């Protein structure tokens, strides 16, 4: 059983033809080929599948697609505009915030979300703001530095 489901993905209005209980993560990756959103754990622990729904950051592995009817979704592919990297993305490159890169899309979105809510976070606020995203390579220090750099550049 599939349903027609209108939504906006990365500023583009589309109509999905999907099973209502399909995971948003799978729909993004398999139907829309937006493979920047990653699956790390499939149970909402690691944050690799983070996306924005109506401006709120969520783990897309836990979202049945039926929930995004009429919603505005933004993925990592929609963060840079006109080939111009977001300050957070540039800071991740400059400060070594990405190593293997698999957590990076989710981590970038978490950092963008944090800075939108709190443009000048303290060290403790950065840690809390990113606490839903796991990284096994960096030990997080360079990710914290990237967030600080992005604040300075904005």
């Amino acid at each position, binding site marked *: 059983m599939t349903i027609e489901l209108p939504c906006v993905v990365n500023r583009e209005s589309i109509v999905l033809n999907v099973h209502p209980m399909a995971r948003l993560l799978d729909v993004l990756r398999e139907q829309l080929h937006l493979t920047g959103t990653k699956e790390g754990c499939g149970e909402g622990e690691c944050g690799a599948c983070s996306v924005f729904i109506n401006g709120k950051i969520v783990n897309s592995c836990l979202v049945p697609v039926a929930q995004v009817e009429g919603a505005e979704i933004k993925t990592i592919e929609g963060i840079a505009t006109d080939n111009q990297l977001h300050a957070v993305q540039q800071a991740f490159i400059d400060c070594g915030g*990405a190593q293997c890169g698999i957590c990076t899309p989710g981590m970038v979105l978490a950092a963008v979300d944090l800075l939108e809510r709190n443009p000048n976070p303290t060290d403790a606020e950065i840690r809390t703001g990113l606490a839903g*995203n796991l*990284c*096994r390579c*960096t*030990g997080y220090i360079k990710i914290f530095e990237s967030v600080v750099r992005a604040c300075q550049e904005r």
Partner: protein
Amino acid sequence: MSASPNHPIGKSVPRKEGRKKVTGQALYVDDISFAEMIYGVTVRSSVPRGRITNISFAGDTPWDEFTIVTAKDIRDIGGENYVALILNDQPYLADEVVNHAEEAIVLLAHPNKYLLEEARRNVRIEYEELPAILTLEDSVDKKEIIWGEDNVFKTFLVDKGNVDEAWTNADLIVEGEYFTGAQEQLYIENNGVIAIANEHDGVTVWGSMQCPYYVHKALIKLFALPEDKVRVIQTETGGGFGGKEEYPSIIAGHAALLSLKCGKPVKIIYDRAEDMVATTKRHPSRTRHKTAVTKDGKLVAMDIEFVIDGGAYCTLSPVVLSRGTIHAAGPYFSPNVRIRSSAVATNIPPHGAFRGFGAPQGIFALERHLDKVAKAVGLTPDEFRRRNFIQQGETTATSQIIREKVDMAGLLDRAFELTGYHEKRQRFAKENEQSRVKKGIGFATFMHGAGFTGSGEVYLASVVGAEATSEGRVKILAASTEIGQGTNTIFAQIASEALGVDSDLIEVAQPDTANVPNSGPTVASRTCMVVGKLVESAVLALKQTLVGSGLLREDYSQSEFQEACRTHIEKFGPLKTFSTYQAPPNIHWNDEKYQGDAYGAYAWAVYVAEVSVDSLTYEAQVEDFVALQEVGRVINPVLATGQIEGGVAQGIGFTLFENVVWQNGRMANNQMTNYIMPTPADIPPIRVYFEENPYAYGPGGAKGIGELPMDGPAPAILNAIENATGVSFDHVPLMPEAIMENLTNVLHGITL
């Protein structure tokens, strides 16, 4: 150091593939699809040891739509049903017996993932269970013989001086026993591959992996194919840490078997639960120390017994054991050292490579033990070590003469200055009396050898190529993989430095066994030091070819170099040069006696941890961490610092967070919700410092650093916890329950 952009060594050149990674454009194996591609899954054993008596395909699954592969299919294609590595004892698919829970027995493929999952549950396997060995202790005690004649995969003996005669010269003998647990690598990208196999073209595999040529070697045997009919391509890899050293050979073989049978591309991607329950982990260990010292604190003899649990099959355990054995006596001089080590079999999924490769286990035991010895002899931990640090010209446990400059005492001084160690030791002792939260500071001093052990690099005989392109660029051809640690970037820096051209002009080819030579596996802290040196010599050979042909003068500009490449290719065709590993002079290793130059170079380090232990909740937390190391020349400070920070975080996880719970030989907590790795909220400031003492045979003077940071955190943290609480703990992971059990005794009488 020159400010010229053409001298990039020592500069934090941005990660080459950084832009792709921050925009989500980097393609990992699960991001890739082929026309007609279908999916594969693995049906695994539910018992730790048993004889398979029946396999049936039940339920309402439309089985005729499924591709089904068992061990019989391997016989039918004339292949060898083992994963070619060291001992060839591990089958691709269990045939008559299973030797561990989660061992692969049946493979299924179907276009629909959801049907496939149901089908997996409808395969019924019956067993006649056999008695299983589930712990290292039971294996050592031979409660049941489950592997070979004695449950032993491998033993080593390192023997220096005469330990048995030394006991009589000692004023004091101190003994101790130490344990480390399993640890999951927990790369955020699970294992995955895509395979295309058919009789005409052979086998091609794309996947997440560290060592394309390991997979290549294994598939040649599995399919009984010539070398050129097997092709292995590494896709962007989301972390490895050793967990993608040997395991990808298995999943690659499985996908290729399914593909050969169904004639379509087959993708197998493990989910997190399967990856955690079925794939390799760090070897659990037990170390016993018996140490003889004089009353003024000089080591007289070190007698060390080191045992690791290899799991059900040999896999890489002999080499893990080798590195662990050699590192077990640390950066100290003792005239008499005996290290007896063994890797034993149990009926749990095989343990495998994990950053540090045996060294973190042995170093944990030693650095905990030396605090105990220091106490017994009446010295502080630092003063005791100062009296025994190895000096230039002295010999290690394997009788290797340390020829390079080494200054452990100097490193210790600097680390103490950076942390205010002595002041804190005193202050915490005072403050702790009144405080519910006990603070402590501790340290570990250690070394880590770079590259393969002993003659390993000579046997590997790694090769790196450099190819000029008609656009005047240079492409590095190597099988060494970028797994997040920065291979692409540092290779470009090394080549750029050697050629005097921009690092943007250097491309690093995607590891693909059809296009790149075998530069060896991406393991053992060897990629920068050993393979990087080959990158340097390969591009220098390219330059020499251009100069020798008269197309380039010795003192050239970048545009002249590019022009010379173009002209050479026009005139003479493709221009490629290759460089093969040659051992540095004066490296001698005796494999029989396990004596000699175990490693060409060592990194030397002092790590200091500051902790707090809450005497009410029994939580231990790392408050500050300083990692100071001498690693030769640092090629890229941001990348090198990132390696150390990440390794320290993994080490903190190993020490205080990551507890594999075993139930009947199976990991019971195989989820990220109940196997806990450090989050952004758990990590202390990790302050990283380098001393640079260029190594003559490393590229630009570099040594290896990848594994080093895994060695120091566990002993430094437990030494700090002893300082905070007065209780000596001898095992990791150290969970709050264990702290509670021991601390309530010690703190008895204190009002909490």
